C-alpha cells in the first residue's frame, strides 16, 4: 500500500516537504507501535524519537524557507520510486517488523537523496537538510541490521 498522500500532479518544493512529513509520520508510527510489542528492543523507541525530531525539522523548514519563488514545478521525481507500505505490523514477528523498517529507511534514503539533488538549484539550504536526513536514514539501516532477531 502506498502512503495516502502521494505527490500531486505537479510536484513543488511544498509537496516534497509534505511527502517527507508523511514519511516521517509513518516511521514514527511504525517504531512507536512496534516498541510496544517489543519493549526489550531499545532501538525502536529511540528511532521513533529520531523521526519525531525530523518531522519537526521539516515543518520548521517549510515554515521558514518556502516562498513563491521556489514553488515551481518539479517533474523529475517519479512517485512510484518511493512507495512504502503502511499496513499495520502490530503482532508481526520481529524480523518482519525490522524488514519493514529497513525498507522504509531505504526508501526514505532514496527520496531524500533525490530530493536533495533537485532542491539544490531551488533552495540550497533545503538540499543540505535533505542530504543530512538521507545520511541518518543510512545510519538507521545499520542500527536496524544490528538488532539481534
Amino acid at each position: 500500500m502506498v502512503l495516502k498522500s502521494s505527490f500531486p500532479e505537479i510536484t513543488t518544493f511544498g509537496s516534497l516537504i509534505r511527502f517527507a512529513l508523511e514519511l516521517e509520520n509513518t516511521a514514527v508510527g511504525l517504531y512507536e507501535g512496534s516498541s510496544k510489542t517489543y519493549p526489550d528492543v531499545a532501538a525502536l523507541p529511540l528511532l521513533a524519537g529520531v523521526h519525531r525530531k525530523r518531522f519537526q525539522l521539516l515543518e520548521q523548514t517549510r515554515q521558514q524557507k518556502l516562498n513563491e519563488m521556489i514553488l515551481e514545478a518539479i517533474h523529475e521525481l517519479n512517485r512510484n520510486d518511493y512507495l512504502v507500505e503502511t499496513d499495520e505490523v502490530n503482532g508481526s514477528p520481529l524480523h518482519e517488523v525490522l524488514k519493514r523498517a529497513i525498507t522504509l529507511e531505504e526508501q526514505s534514503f532514496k527520496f531524500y537523496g533525490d530530493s536533495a539533488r533537485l532542491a539544490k538549484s531551488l533552495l540550497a539550504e533545503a538540499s543540505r537538510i535533505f542530504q543530512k536526513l538521507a545520511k541518518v536514514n543510512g545510519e538507521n539501516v545499520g542500527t536496524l541490521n544490528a538488532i539481534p532477531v
Partner: protein
Amino acid sequence: MAKLKVASERVDDRQQLPEVKKHYGVLKNYVNGEWINAESSKLENIENPATAEVIGQVPLSTAHETFKAVESAQEAWLEWRETPPISRSRYFFKLRELMEQHFEDISRIQVQEHGKAIDEARGETRRAIENVEVAAGVTSLMMGYTLEDGAAAGIDEEAIRSPLGVFASISPFNFPAMIPFWFWPYAVACGNTYIIKPSKQVPMTQQYIFELIHEAGFPPGVVNLVNGSHEVADALMDHPLVKGISFVGSTPVAHYVYRKCAENRKRVQAQGGAKNSLVVMPDCVLNRTVANMLSSFYGCTGQRCLAGANLVAVGDIYQELKERFIEGAKRIKVGYGLDETVNMGPLISGDAKRKIEGYIETGVKEGAKLLLDGRNIKVDGYPNGYFIGPTMFDDVTPDMTIAKEEIFGPVVSLIRVKNLDEAIDLIHSSPFGNAASIYTQSGPAAREFRYRVQCGNIGINIGVVAAMAYFPFAGYKDSFFGDLHGQGQDAINFFTDRKVVITRWF
C-alpha cells in the same frame, strides 16, 4: 495484514486542512489599543471564494470614526516618538515570535478569505514576517550621519532621521497578510504611528494579526486597524494629521490616491497595475523555464502584480515552448486551497470571475486562438466556487486587448517575436512597468535586457520578481506613482525626514 496506524491523524488532516473557524462574525476595529465595534451599521459579507459561503461580515466604518482613529494615533505618537529605537524594536521581536507561533493559522485564514493555495499562503506569511525582522533592525537602518568639520574647521555637520507622525496604508485583496507589512513595521519602528485599512474583501487576516499585535504589547494608539471602504480611504487622505499614505491597487485608483495626497500635501507611494512579459530566448533551459513560468502565470490564480501575463517567444523556440507549456498547464490541479494537493485556487469573487471570462471572450472575438480554456471548469465538491482553470491564447498580437490590459487572472497570451529588440519594444509599448523577465543562458542577452527594460523589477530566469524585505519594491511608469518604494531602506526614507544640524562651540 492489518493497517499500520499512523503516529498522528495529522497525515490525513493535511490533505484537507481544517479551517481556523467556520465563521468569524462581525469584525471590529482596533483603535487606541482596544477592540471596538464600528459606529457604522453598514456591513458587507466576506465570502470564501472556493465555496461562496459567507464566513464573516466587515463593517464599513465612517469618516468620523476614521478621524477619531487618526487623532488617537496622533496622541500616541507624541510618546512613541520619544521611545528609543532599541525599545521600539523589542516590540517587533515579540511580534515576530507570535507570528511564528501562529504561522499556520495566519496562512489558513488567508486561504479561507482569498482562495490561494496553502503553500502560497505560507510563502506570504513568511514574507510578512521577514518585513518584521528587517524593521526590527531600525537601530541601524535609521541612523543618520555626521561629518566632523563638515561645515568648516571646528564646525561639525550631521543629518538626523526623524519620524513625522501618523501614516496609513490602503491595501488590496491579493495579499491579505503581506502587503500592509511592506509599510507599517518600518513606519512604526521609525517612531511613527499607523493606521491600516485592509481590503474589505479580505479583512480577516489582519483582524487575526492584530490580535497578535495586541498581545505583543504595542502601546495603545501606535498601530490601529480601521475596516471599511472608500469612505475610510478618503478620510485618511483628507485628514491633515496623516503625514503619508501607502497604497497598493489598480492604476486608476493609485493615480487618484497620488493626486489626492499631493493636493493634501502628504507623502505618498501608490502602487498600481501591471502587464508583465516573460521573454523566452531560444537558448533557454526549456524544462526549468516552463516550470518556473507556470508558477508565475498561474500562481495566486494570476491575481498578483508580479504575475506573468504575456508569454513572449523569441524566434524558433515558439513551437516547443508552446507544447511544453500546455503540457505543464494541464497538470495544474485546481481546487480549494486548503487541500494540500491543490496548485491553484479560485478567483477572489464572482465579479472577478465574470470580468476574466469577459476578457477570454474578447480574446476570442479579436482573433486570438484559445488553446486552453479554463471557463466552465468543474471542481469536485466546490460547485459554487469562483474557479477558472489555466487558460492560454496563441496567435496574440500586441494590439489585442488581452495583450495590453491587466486581466488579473490565469490567462496567458502567447506572442511571437523575431528577436530580443522586438521583445523589448513590446514591453515598452505597455503603459505599465512593474516587472519583466527573460529566460536565457546568454549573459549578453540578459545584460541587455536588464539594462534596457524600463520596469521596476527584472527577472533573469525568474518569473516572480518579488523583492525581499531588505530590497525596495515598486514598479515604473503607470505601475507606480511616487518615488520612494516599499520595504527596506526606501521605507525608512519614506517614513522619516532628514534634519541637518550644524554645530559650533565657542
